[in-house]
């Protein structure tokens, strides 16, 4: 939990760090210079040995005063981009988790409580969605939607905006949550207190709101850290394949992609966001376990 708070706090402080460095992490800086130990050097260093092939960005200075983790292919400060990228990664993951949970809860409630034809139809739709491997579905959706503007009536998602990965990741995990939610609703639907409420002639919306939803919360809350972790990894994968966050915006996935072409000479560019993802996802998984233990009565007995 502490680790997560720390990561979130650091990413929130991104503008402060960039402001302190006086750099714009979204602008190319191919001709930039930086002062290291009193010496002014080019950020993009032209090879002067041998045939003089290749231009390599400056490596990690390990100095918080600038280019702590080196520069990427555009001469931008990787440390600053890592923080901004973390913001995007965390924002996309959180927003996608909220969308996924809301949709899954609605679908699970409708299917589980109403039963019959509604359950049949919703369950089959979920089955179809589930039949696609997650990444295949995400990649297909991204490629189709990436260059077009989506009009959802209430709001529109323009091509290249952050809302697009949010929307895609939010959708693809719905079946994974809606199914257990539906199963839980089915159990609750036939529990004594709900039968009693029905017997008392209480209106459906009241039963859903007062009897079922509160009892559903543990199931849903357990999903939060798991989904967050999944969403972070999915977002990184999509961005790595350049079908998630679009340049010059950063996310941990895009920074890994930037770093891939520098793996031999500047491994820090790809390693730093990789480590950030590992730490965050690991922390989320540990948190997820803890939450499950806390909320699952049977788990405690065991």
């Amino acid at each position, binding site marked *: 939990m502490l680790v997560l708070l720390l990561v979130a706090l650091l990413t929130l402080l991104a503008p402060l760090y960039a402001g302190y460095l006086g750099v714009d992490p979204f*602008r*190319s800086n*191919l*001709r930039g210079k930086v002062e290291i130990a009193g010496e002014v050097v080019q950020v*993009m260093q*032209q*090879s002067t*040995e*041998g*045939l*003089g*092939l*290749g*231009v*390599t960005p400056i490596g990690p200075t390990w100095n918080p005063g600038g280019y702590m983790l080196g520069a990427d*292919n*555009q001469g931008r400060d990787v440390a600053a981009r890592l923080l901004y990228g973390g913001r995007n990664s965390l924002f996309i993951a959180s927003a996608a988790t909220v969308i996924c949970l809301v949709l899954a809860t609605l679908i699970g409630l409708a299917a589980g409580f109403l039963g019959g034809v509604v359950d049949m139809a919703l369950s089959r739709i979920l089955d179809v969605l589930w039949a696609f491997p997650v990444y295949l579905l995400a990649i297909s959706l991204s*490629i189709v939607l*990436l*260059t077009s503007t989506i009009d959802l009536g209430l709001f529109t998602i323009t*091509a*290249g905006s952050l809302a697009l990965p949010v929307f895609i990741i939010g959708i693809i995990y719905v079946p994974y949550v809606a199914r257990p939610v539906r199963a839980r609703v089915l159990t609750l639907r036939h529990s004594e207190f709900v039968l009693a409420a029905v017997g008392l002639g209480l209106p459906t919306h009241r039963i859903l709101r007062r009897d079922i939803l509160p009892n559903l919360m543990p199931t849903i809350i357990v999903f939060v850290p798991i989904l967050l972790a999944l969403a972070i990894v999915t977002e990184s994968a999509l961005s790595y*394949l*350049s079908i998630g966050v*679009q*340049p*010059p915006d950063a996310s941990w996935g895009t920074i890994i992609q930037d770093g*891939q*072409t*520098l*793996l*031999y*000479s500047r491994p820090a560019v790809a390693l730093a966001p990789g480590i950030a993802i590992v730490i965050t996802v690991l922390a989320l998984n540990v948190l997820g376990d803890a939450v499950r233990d806390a909320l699952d009565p049977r788990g405690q007995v065991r």
Partner: protein
Amino acid sequence: MTNWTRYAALTGAAALLSATAVTAGAETREEMMAAHRGGEIRLVAAAAGGTIDPQINYTLQYWQLFYFTYDGLVTFKRVEGAGAGGVVPDLAEAMPEVSADGLTYTFKLRQGLKFSDGSDVGVDDVVASFQRVFKVSGPTAGTFYNGIVGAEACIAAPADCTLDGGISADAASNTVTITLTAPDPEFLYKIAVPHASVLPAETLQEDAGVTPIPTTGPYMFESYNPNESLVMVRNPHFKEWSVDAQPDGFADSIVFDFGLSAEAQVTAVQNGQADWMFDQPPTDRLAEIGTQNADQVHVNTLTAFWYVPFNVNLAPFDDVRVRQAVNYAIDRDALVGIFGGPVLAQPVCTILPPAFPGHEDHCAYTQNPGTDWTAPDMDKALALVAESGTAGQKVTIVVDDTSVMRDVGTYLQSVLTDLGYDASVNSISGNIQFTYIQNTNNKVQMSVSQWYQDYPAASNFLNVLLGCASFHPGSDSSVNISGYCNEEIDARMQAAMQLATTDPDAANLEWAKIDQAMMAEAPIAPLFTPKHVDLVSKRLGNFLFSPQHQWLMSQAWVQ
């Protein structure tokens, strides 16, 4: 042609750094043959290049092989440097007799030539091969060979293609006559490329895929598995008839292995497990091979350019001042850095690449306009944008997802932001980007693309990329990506092409003027001319780089 699927026949000017290149100076060809004949050349690439049908494949990867396996009536001279732009007789005994009106070409076939299966090469094979270009719907049938009489009917109904009136054979005199609908100064170039290879008449009228077709050159294909390797061995029926057109090869066999990433290819060549890598070394490894393997690296200029097509029919680029402003604002040196530094690329402001017919050093969009680009002129650029009143508009740059292309796009986004636009970059799969940016329905405002010559003629850049005839709204095949059509300049280009039939030098002077006239309207922003890096093994000798064929594989030796 574009480098989109790496298809290209390329032209370079001079081998800059051919450290190990040994050209015939002291030794005669016979002495070299005696000393170095034999052995196996091992090539590596990330992936196979598709079909090995020379009339269908349009990739640089296999054109390089077709040049020493197949022959046409004429071919580009196999020499190092700019001389390779010249056309020499190949299966034909001599250059054709051309009628006074420029419409009829008569070729006399050499006697005693054989295919690698032992059958004779006859005039009927030549006729059948030209018909086959249409019957298999070759990729250039409608662009290179549509000027032959009867071609229109063949394009409409490929299966029944006869080219009636367009091509005829006379077995008695061993001649083939080709008739055109209009004089075409570039016709000999068009039949010198592998798509006009002569194949046995009985070759199936469909894509040969992985099945080798008998060859006429010094090597033939023995086996092909696109997931593993392509094996070429000596053609037992080959007898050298012209060193200029089709010299005998040194190695006994050439094996092309597939499936290694570019990173792994570099390591394989460094360790001597392979003699040459097809893919360009990753930018990350350039500094390393430039120092540790300097004597194994050959850098050659390509006649190609990277450029930014502006959509002249969409805001804000429908205003010439905006297009000029971006041209002024681009720091071409910074882009050269992205490509690997000044040794690997050269900033350009003209459409025709340096050392290409019709090229004249000229740069309007730089500080101190003159012959060369020196530095961006932000003041002028900002003034032009202010004048146009377009600042603040949304601009999307569409690039493909290769790392260099994305870096170029990201840099351009910064430039547009500096000019006051609300710019973003959209990187889409390399498999679709080239067709996506061509289609006007996609409303692409600005993109990044590349163009490599098919053959050395100015029209191959100016007329193909910016001529009215290349603009097809709503089509994926509209290579005039800018949608630029200036009828006055178009008429001048038609005149220049006709002038080339009688006075090529005067025509090239006119092409240089057309280039400048186009750049005054700035439908595109030329960025830089790339150079090609060949990394070869320590044991490989006699590396020759020709403008048209790139590395002349058959002329290298490994022992």
